[in-house]
């Protein structure tokens, strides 16, 4: 049973990782948001399964919270935002896709190697997931680096948060409740502030290309 569950969790983990890759390669903001939503969904599912296996009710709560936040609220906000700012098309990335993919693969291997010693002695049902979570974090990081517009950067930031959540749930059956709440609050506030910012940036520079934000420098 738990064996099956473990496989299930590993499956979700794989899905999340795959979505992260998809995000890197994806160019259209709209579909980026969709991918992000899916990732959130997968995360929710994973959390729920873990909760079911380990009989930990507070994981259900956390799953619900995540659902609200990452599957409903944030995607909604993002959709609103891009409609208001009408930035649907985002073609330019700083590095072309294949290269990015290669780097991504290297990162995944690196992450797995890092997590290996830990996974080996991790008592939790799906030890391998930590490596995947780490890989997600690194991939989202990469995405933030290579995207030259504000919105994708933010999405990268959020998916990084997803990776973290996944690590928290899969590796440790979730953080203590109070922490979870705090984190969720922070994320929410953060995304709100980011939204406000993007409007302001937009009205200042009438573009969301963060290459406008390169005035402050040493030279």
């Amino acid at each position, binding site marked *: 049973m738990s064996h099956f569950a473990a496989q299930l969790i590993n499956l979700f983990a794989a899905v999340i990782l795959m979505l992260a890759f998809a995000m890197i390669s994806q160019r259209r903001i709209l579909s980026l948001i969709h991918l992000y939503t899916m990732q959130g969904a997968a995360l929710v599912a994973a959390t729920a399964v873990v909760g079911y296996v380990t009989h*930990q009710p507070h994981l259900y709560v956390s799953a619900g919270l995540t659902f609200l936040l990452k599957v409903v609220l944030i995607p909604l906000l993002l959709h609103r935002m891009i409609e208001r700012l009408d930035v649907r098309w985002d073609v330019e990335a700083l590095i072309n896709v294949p290269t990015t993919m290669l780097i991504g693969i290297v990162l995944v291997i690196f992450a797995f190697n*890092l997590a290996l010693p*830990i996974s080996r002695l991790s008592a939790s049902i799906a030890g391998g997931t930590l490596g995947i979570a*780490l890989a997600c974090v690194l991939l989202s990081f990469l995405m933030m680096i290579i995207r030259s517009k504000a919105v994708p950067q933010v999405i990268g930031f959020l998916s990084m948060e997803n990776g973290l959540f996944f690590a928290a749930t899969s590796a440790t059956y979730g953080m203590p409740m109070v*922490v979870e709440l705090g984190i969720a609050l922070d994320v929410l506030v953060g995304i709100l502030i980011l939204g406000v910012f993007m409007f302001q940036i937009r009205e200042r520079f009438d573009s969301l290309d*963060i290459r406008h934000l390169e005035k*402050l420098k040493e030279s």
Partner: protein
Amino acid sequence: MIPLLFVLGVPLLGSLVLAFTGHRGFARDINVGFSLATFLAACALTVVVISKGPLLALNEEFFIDPLNVFLVALTAFVGLTTSIFSRPYMRVEQDHGKMTPARLRLYHSMYQLFSFTMLAALTTNNMGILWVAMEAATLTTVLLVSVYRTAASLEAAWKYFILCGVGIALALFGTVLLYMAAEKILGAEGGALLWTHLASVKTRLDPNIITLSFAFLFIGYGTKVGLVPLHNWLPDAHAEGPTPVSAVLSGLLLNVAMYALLRCKVLTDGALNNALASQLLMGFGLVSVVVAAFFLSRQKDVKRMFAYSSIEHMGLIAFAFGLGGPIANFAGLLHMTVHSLTKSAIFFTVGHATQKAGTQVMSEIRGLIKVSPTVGWGMILGSLAILGMPPFGVFASEFLILTTAMREQPWATPFLLLALGVAFASVFSRVLPMVFGETSVRPLPHAPALLPVFVHLGLGLMLGLYVPPYLVGWYWQAARMLGG
């Protein structure tokens, strides 16, 4: 217990109140009032801790020991003086039309919220909450930095947000790993993230996980500390925000981040009995000192320059804690104190100076001493103090750090010598003409609040010549707790 509630409650309440009344004329005074109340509460808390020893409260969610109680007191104090300083400053900004009522509301309310988050971060016993508070502090300061809504301030705030957000996220990963390591021993109940519990079992934590987790925590909180090369947000954020914010950023937030780092270092040292944490701190500290010194030598904007000086000093502090040993730890704590006092004092004078001159470009600020001698003397003395001139306190800690390093890590001293020399040359060559010589600046309608400046400098001077015994007690206990 009760004072603790006040320490945390007063600023929270203040932020609520000011969120509505922050634009009124009396808001400035309310701001000061709340800060004063916080400071008094902090003093009470300090007294309690000194008399009764470390304090656990609210089913162990909060923990006050010598290490953080003096930071709490310091934070409350600088918060108070900064609020005093910001009264005339904000009035002038209003006159110049840079602050609309809405922004004033935001500013005042966020100012209180910011001090709340810092105090929470300092007093909490829960590594998770510590992370939450740090993130919250980031968010509030992002709003404070961007309060002018100018292009530059937006850019600065954006960079600040993204870089620190990412950094903090990594710190969260580290925290998760820490929890993962802890729950094997402490069980999945809430206790597993409480620092006191962790510290009690730190030797049994799994080294592999802790190593990985410290790496992430180091990068995460190190970003907030402003260690090179994670520092890039810092000069922008300092230079573009309102000066009171620069003062608290340099004087307090960096300290809090360093505090978080120290808490993690203690656990890590306990878990893996090797010098990993120390080496990381020492290496990054040294790099920060040197690089920041060279950055200093090419600054044109006064606030930016002193921001880099903050990076340099944070590097020095990190180096000191990396050195370890009772003397170096003591020196590091002392340096945290005097740096935040002196640096905030400098920012006060800089704030007045820039308002007088109407620019932050140093080459256009001349002969302050002629227009208002007090500001001029404040700036020159402050700069000399921050550059490590006795008898100011910064020198005391630098003395201890350098002399210890000379025998512990001789290889590092040439770099320190070089860096300190370059820093002195750069900063002093710019401050001197700003203060002396023929003047270009005009007096202001509102008298500047220079009491904070000279109180801070006076305290810095005192710490250079005479450290009160109870303070010494704190420092020594704290140093011991850091595993001296």
